[in-house]
């Protein structure tokens, strides 16, 4: 098999090839590493690749080759720099975690390893997952494989760019306000944000604990379903993890079409501010779902316009508490020459955190502070209830919803760096799923005239992943193969 053929495998074919002896895991991992060496200098999706370690894992997989080796035996995956993998750095793209080595595996990673997966490298992100462009990284930005003058989205931009450029067969990301779905949309790959609690958060560096979920980025919907199935389920180390079994990718999904399914189009998600080319691509995808037998109905999510305000209050409040642990005492970087603990904390954090993280910590501290708590944090939690109820009502009228992932295609590099509010407002179509705890999937559905990918977002109710994946798989099959990125300059 030549290198390109390896890089275009789906996960099940990759695993089947190793089991049958068509190729070894070493050959597969070597091909992926060669792709990284060849293409990553242009897009900088990876922040850490230990080739020797990856090949050792591959050899171990080859040694246990056979039907009992696991569903991903010998199959390489990439991991966002926010997830702990024992022995590897876990820098969260931050200066403050310089030198940190993870002492244990995140549960999601451990479950992939239990099925034989090879962790091939760590991908770039916005620092501590705060951002929507992967420009807020101590390593510098990752570039969009479709156009090097554009951002890959964020915060899981490295994972999305690695999968889109076929440097990784699949990658893990995390989604607190859209950080898996939006980069998947910007880079033309599949991204799944599972329902809150589907996948254990143990070993995921916390940003906003009531919103965070780990999710897969893949080249196709069935691979996302496979990774979800492997990573999901109750974990005693995360008391919010749900025990319900997640669906397995079903060969019947695509063939069954969408007959009998009601798909809602939330009217607020197609309103002012939506780029006409994005609107057109998503409507065409909805029509394709109708042609597969689905009934399209309009639904209302009336509190959508308050979602960004509620999200940025709640997320930053939780972040300000979660990031208090980075104080220069137990891990990571410490400022030199501090005279007392207060000096140590304030200088370590000043040196260690980037601007966006500092902004969010300050905002979060403010909305929780005495005198402001009721007006901001408490009110935002109540608005969160209204947004959750909007979804409950709407899912009474439909099985799943179809919407854009983001109001536009990928931003230009630097377009939002001086105007953080502008970047925040671009998250309007994704933060709602996190606030409500429901699941969402991004599937590529078209290209703009400039050749930038557009994603279709399929939203499902809490623990409604099977519906979302079924709609995604049926649509994807009807759509046919999506074009490959051509790279290119700005």
């Amino acid at each position: 098999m030549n290198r390109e053929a390896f890089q275009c495998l789906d996960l099940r074919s990759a695993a089947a090839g190793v089991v049958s002896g068509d190729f070894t895991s070493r050959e597969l991992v070597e091909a992926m590493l060669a792709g990284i060496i060849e293409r990553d200098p242009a897009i900088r999706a990876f922040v850490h690749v230990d080739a020797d370690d990856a090949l050792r894992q591959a050899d171990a997989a080859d040694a246990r080759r056979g039907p009992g080796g696991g569903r991903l035996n010998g199959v390489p995956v990439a991991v966002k720099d926010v997830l702990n993998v024992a022995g590897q750095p876990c820098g969260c793209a931050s200066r403050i975690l310089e030198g940190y080595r993870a002492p244990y595996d995140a549960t999601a990673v451990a479950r992939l390893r239990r099925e034989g997966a090879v962790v091939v490298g760590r991908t770039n992100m916005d620092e501590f997952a705060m951002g929507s462009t992967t420009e807020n990284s101590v390593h510098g930005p990752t570039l969009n494989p479709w156009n090097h003058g554009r951002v890959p989205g964020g915060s899981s931009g490295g994972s999305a760019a690695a999968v889109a450029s076929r440097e990784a067969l699949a990658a893990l990301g995390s989604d607190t306000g859209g950080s898996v779905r939006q980069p998947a949309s910007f880079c033309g790959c599949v991204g799944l944000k599972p329902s809150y609690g589907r996948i254990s958060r143990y070993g995921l560096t916390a940003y906003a604990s009531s919103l965070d979920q780990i999710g897969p980025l893949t080249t196709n919907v069935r691979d996302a379903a496979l990774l979800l199935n492997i990573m999901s389920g109750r974990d005693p180390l995360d008391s919010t993890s749900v025990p319900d079994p997640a669906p397995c990718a079903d060969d019947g999904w695509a063939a069954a079409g969408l007959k009998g399914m009601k798909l809602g189009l939330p009217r607020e998600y197609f309103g002012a501010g939506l780029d006409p080319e994005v609107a057109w691509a998503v409507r065409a995808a909805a029509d394709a779902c109708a042609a597969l037998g689905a009934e399209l109905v309009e639904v209302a999510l009336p509190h959508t316009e308050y979602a960004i305000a509620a999200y940025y209050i709640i997320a930053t409040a939780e972040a300000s508490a979660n990031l208090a642990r980075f104080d220069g005492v137990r891990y990571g970087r410490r400022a030199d020459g501090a005279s007392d603990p207060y000096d140590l904390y304030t200088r370590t954090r000043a040196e260690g955190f980037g601007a966006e993280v500092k902004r969010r910590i300050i905002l979060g501290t403010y909305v929780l502070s005495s005198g402001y708590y009721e007006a901001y944090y408490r009110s935002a939690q109540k608005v969160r209830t209204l947004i959750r109820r909007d979804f409950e009502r709407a899912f009474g009228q439909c099985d799943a919803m179809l919407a854009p992932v983001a109001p536009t295609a990928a931003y230009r590099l630097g377009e939002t760096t001086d105007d953080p509010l502008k970047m925040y407002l671009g998250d309007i179509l994704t933060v709602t799923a996190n606030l409500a705890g429901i699941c969402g999937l991004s599937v590529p559905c078209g290209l703009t005239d400039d050749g930038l990918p557009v994603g279709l977002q399929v939203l499902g109710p809490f623990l409604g992943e099977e519906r979302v994946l079924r709609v995604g798989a049926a649509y994807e099959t009807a759509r046919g193969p999506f074009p490959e990125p051509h790279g290119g300059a700005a």
Partner: protein
Amino acid sequence: MTEANESGAMDVAYVARLARLALTPEEAETFQRQLDHIVGYVRKIGELDVSGVEPTAHAAVLSNVFRPDEARHGIEHDVALGNAPRSADGQFLVPRIVE
């Protein structure tokens, strides 16, 4: 609207001290401008009448999750200290706290 909500701009320097963040004068100025803009925007939730609405703290459906009260193996002492910027005698080293 409460009194706090109407009381005007955030004092970035003060909040940064609460958050244990030292800011340069340039940072303080930039953040003040950007955060005034952001706080001005998020204040829009005050437009909604949320009296009588229960707050949502979590999307989790589970509550009172218990596990058996059994001693289990955690991270080894030396592993826990392995990432410390400074340690000695099996402990984290910090600047003097008590004179």
